[in-house]
């Protein structure tokens, strides 16, 4: 599923990143958001806020739509 529809307070694993928009793809890669990485959703509005590694990122729904994830743990 897309990161934008992921649930709050759950931890997901990144499965793949959409390659259609090359720039968006490169940007996401540069941030270290790669398949296999754990992301925990902290907040969903006004931006998607998630923890990845030990840092916190905020991204908009456009980029969030490019990240496909699957559920890893329901309690973050």
């Amino acid at each position, binding site marked *: 599923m897309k990161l934008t529809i992921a649930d709050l307070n759950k931890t997901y694993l990144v499965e793949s990143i959409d390659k259609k928009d090359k720039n968006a793809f490169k940007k996401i890669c540069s941030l270290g958001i790669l398949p296999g990485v754990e992301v925990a959703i902290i907040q969903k509005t*006004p931006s998607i806020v998630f923890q990845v590694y030990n840092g916190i*990122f905020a991204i908009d729904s456009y*980029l969030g739509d490019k990240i496909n994830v699957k559920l890893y743990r329901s309690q973050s």
Partner: protein
Amino acid sequence: MTGKNKYKVVLVGNPNVGKSVLFYNLTGNYSAVSNYPGTTIDYTTGKMNIGEHHEITVIDTPGLYNLMTISEEENVTKHILFDEKPDVVVHVVDAKNIQRMLPLTLQLIEAKFPVILVLNMYDELQRQNLDIQISHLEHDLGIPVVETVAVKGIGTKNLRSRIISIAEKRYKFDPILFSYANEIEDLIEEVSGKLQNDYIISKKVLSILLLNGDKYAMGLIAGEKDVENIKYILNTIDPLDIRLKTEHQRHNAAKELMAEHLNHNGKVKKVNFAKIIDKITMHPLFGLFTVALILYIGFYKFVGQFGAGYLVDLVEVKLFENMLTPFINNLFHKFLGNSVFFDLFAGDYGLFTLGLRYSIAIVLPIVATFFFMFCIIEDSGYLVRLSMILDRIFKKIGLSGRSVIPIVLGLGCGTMATLVTRTLETVRERYLVTFLLALTIPCSAQLGVILGLLGTSFTALATWLISITVIFLVAGAILNRYTKGNPATFFMEVPPLRFPKIGNVLRKTYSRLKWYAMEIIPIFLLASVLIWIGKITKIFDILTYIFSYPATWAGLPADVGEIFLYGFFRRDFGIAGLYDMKELLDLRQLIVSCIILTLFVPCIAQFTIMIKERGFKVASIIFLSVIPFAFLSGIVINILLLLLRFN
């Protein structure tokens, strides 16, 4: 000075890991820095002098995520790394985020740069009950690893001695080796086998960059004999796929290393005060309250009432009006009598009585209070939260939350802010923000005087604020509608909220203020001379006459036309002129003239930077479209206010 060993050290790393503070610690020199303060948008050099025999040049660079660069800032750093032949590359990382940042270290090692890894903000890592076994990590990476807390100056001494030992080639590197999947390694070998020339980076990394589709790397190998064959190979592969795979492998290597060397010492305390504040500032609704609270306390109370009210009154009335101005007038009268040259130095438009008085008595106190407040907000990590909260609203006008930073900075100085638009990712967003800065964003001096002029009446101030906000949104929406290009995307790392260190805040305020003073005082003085020339040649009378027309159309006294003319030299210059004229205007007229002046053309300095950053054509279009827009808005708002029987 001869016989010194000269070395070059380059600081690199992700944005917001504390490179600039570390740079200050190493060079001890903030003031000699030829940089426009703000986010580091250009590189900065400084000297680190150690003994008589060494001279070390330290270069601070804009944020870099990956050698496979995307943004303009990243390219600046890449050029420095590839062109400057550094003797030492200091890779600064945020210690708690080491796993995400280590892949860049691996990339730098792989490129054969002499790298030191600096784990900065080590205290924040410890606060999360984490710990890194530094000596083990150092052993595994085969490069020096140093822990620092730059804001407290911890670890600087150690870092210095490590830098020297590498510069003098005393350190024996034993760089970590790791390989990619076979298919990738084969491709790398195939490409690197065709590279005959010598390069500053290893052929392996150069080949990976080529396989990743990096344009800069392509330019580097333009002189290769086999360039056509290389291009042929590159045409057979999907660069994004290679990108993902190479990136993935570097990240896995980093993950394995950190699994070994990053220790968790029990659970972190769950709820504390900082976390609650953190939640509030990021909350969609309470976040907006925080914005309002900061606007009220920071801008209205501190910059407006304290800076523009109390401080300006102190310097302008008590110092200048009561003491200096009469003294200067008398002095020049003695020497120059009633000649035209008296007016050059003293009198109503003199160099001392107008130029210097405006810049020192009216503008400087306001700008100083603004920069002080901005530095506190910046260092606390709040700006990113503000960007996040406003991202959605900004999207409506084609911008991203990232634009919040130049726009807020524009409330300080539009010139500085126009420069900072360079940090925006898309060219389109840079154009839009440049335009909005030129049109709608008042600089702090303007803002301060406006608060002083309208502050006595809440309705007046609210009318001004609402009008400007509406114009900002409408202008943004129109621009967004009719400008080609992709909409901006938003991503930002959210740093933890930190208590700003007063020393750092003061140092930054001082450095910004110094930049500002160097920038404005000459322009104010120049403006005084030009006004003097304009007055004696009667050119100004003609221009004032022309401007008096739109002024009267907007229901203002004809004299206000002169103020608009001043606005050409500097926006705040115009508004400071309005300050001198406030007794002549009623409240409605004050509101209308404040709105027109807010919207009116950018000052000479900002216009110069607009030309530099966006080109003459675009800058001129912006400049010329702003004038009718400003007057038109003034006329419309005047009519509206009359209809509402506002007085």
